[in-house]
C-alpha cells in the first residue's frame, strides 16, 4: 500500500488515515505483536510481569546509542 501523502485530516473522516490503516491491519498486527512479545520473553527483556511492548521499550529506552525517538547519534 502506498504511504499516505495527503496528511491533512478531513472533517469527514473519523480517525486519521494512518490509524485507520493500522486498524484495518489489526488481525495481522495482533499476531505479530504476540510473537514479538514471546521473543522479548526469550530475550529476557521484559521489565515487569505483563511483558508488554511498552515495558520492553522502556527497558531499552535508555540505551542511548539505540534509542532516542527525536534523534540519536548515528
Amino acid at each position, binding site marked *: *500500500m502506498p*504511504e499516505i501523502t495527503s496528511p491533512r485530516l478531513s*472533517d469527514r473522516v473519523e480517525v486519521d488515515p494512518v490509524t485507520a490503516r493500522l486498524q484495518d491491519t489489526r488481525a*495481522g498486527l495482533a499476531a505479530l505483536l504476540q510473537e514479538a512479545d514471546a521473543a522479548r520473553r*526469550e530475550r529476557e527483556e521484559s521489565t515487569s510481569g505483563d511483558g508488554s511492548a511498552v515495558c520492553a521499550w522502556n527497558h531499552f529506552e*535508555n540505551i542511548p546509542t539505540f534509542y532516542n525517538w527525536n534523534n540519536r547519534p548515528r
Partner: protein
Amino acid sequence: MAELRPDHADESRWNGMRGISTVPTYVVMQPTTLCNLDCSYCYLPFRGADRKMPVPVAGAVAAAVNAWARTGRFSVVWHGGEPLAAGRDHLARLLGPFDPGVEHHVQTNATLIDDAWCEFFAEHDMRVSVSVDGPEARNGDRINRGGKPAFDRIVRGIDTLRRHGIPFSALCVVGRPEPGLATELYAYFLELGCDVLGVNVEELEGVNKRANRHPAEAVTAFWAELVSAWRRDPRIHLREIEWSLRYVAAVLDGTADDVLPRRLDPIPTVAQDGSVVLLSPELAGFHDPRYGDFTSGNVLTTPLGEILAAATETPWIREFLTGIEACRATCPYFGFCGGAHAANRYFEHGRFDVTTTDHCRNSKIRLLEGVLDHARDHQSTAV
C-alpha cells in the same frame, strides 16, 4: 479494546514533544575529532584532525551529570570521531570525573578493539556498540584513510569482543534498499551475535552530500522484508521493529498519545572543545551565515544545566520548535515519529521550520508502512 476517538483537530491530538526538557536522558561526548577511518557516507567534519577533549571539559560535564545520575539512570555516550582513537589513557582521564553510577557507552568502528580495550570496557563497565554494514560486500563505504576496505579490521575487533564475552550492539547503514538486502543483513547480524541492532538508511547530512532519495516502494519493501526475516528468528532486539510495534500496540490499545515523550530530549552533544550543540549531534562543527555555529554555549564557561534551561534562546532552536508544531499540525505520522529531526531539516532544506524530510520518508513513514504491509500480508500467525 478501546475505541479510538473521532479526531477532527489534529493540532490537539498529539501531546508529546511539546518544548524541550531541561534534563536530558544522556549526553554525547566527543573525546576526539579524529577517526582512523574515512567512510564515504560520514557526516563528521574535522575527522582527519586529532583534537582531543581536555579533561576540564569532562569535569564540567560531570558536575551536571553526576547530579542527574543520582535521581535516575543516566548515560554518557562516547562518540566521535572514533572514540577509541583518543587512546585508553586519555579516555580513562575523561571518565575520571564521572561518578560510578553514571553509565558509559561507546559507539566504535571496532577496528582498534584489542585485548587491552576489552579489559578497559570490562573495567569501566562500558557498553559497546559497533558500526558495521553487513557482510564484506556491503561494507564498501567503510574504508581507511588510504581508501582500503576496513572490513577485515572491523571483524577482527568484533571477534575480540566475542572472545572476551563482551555483549555488543550494532549499527548498520543501508545505502540503497533493494530486494534481498534485508534478509541478507539480518542473517549476517544473527551470525555476528549482536544483542541489539539499529538500521539507518543513509542520510544526506553534514559533509555527506550523497542523495538519500529512493523509490518509496523499494524502501517500504526493504522494511517489510526485514520484519519477515526478523520474525523467522527474533533473537535480536531490532530497534526499528520495536519502535514500530510499540506504536502499533498503543494505537490498538487506544493509548497512542502516550507513546511520544512529553518533551523533546535535548541530547546535548559536547564537542571536544566544550561547546554544546543540542538536539542533533550532526550539527556540531558546522556554521551557517544565518544560524551561526549552532552551539548553545560552552561547558567551560556555563554550567550544562544553565545551557539547557536557556535552550530556546538559541535562534535555530526556536525555529526548530516551530517546525515541530508544523509537523504536529500536518503529518498523520506525527504520533509515531514526533517530528522531523533537526539535522535532517537543515541539511536537506536549509532551515528548521520545514516538515517532511527524506529521512522521515525512509526511516519513519516507510518503516511503519513496511511493518503494516508485512502484517497485511501475514494475517495468520504463520510466516
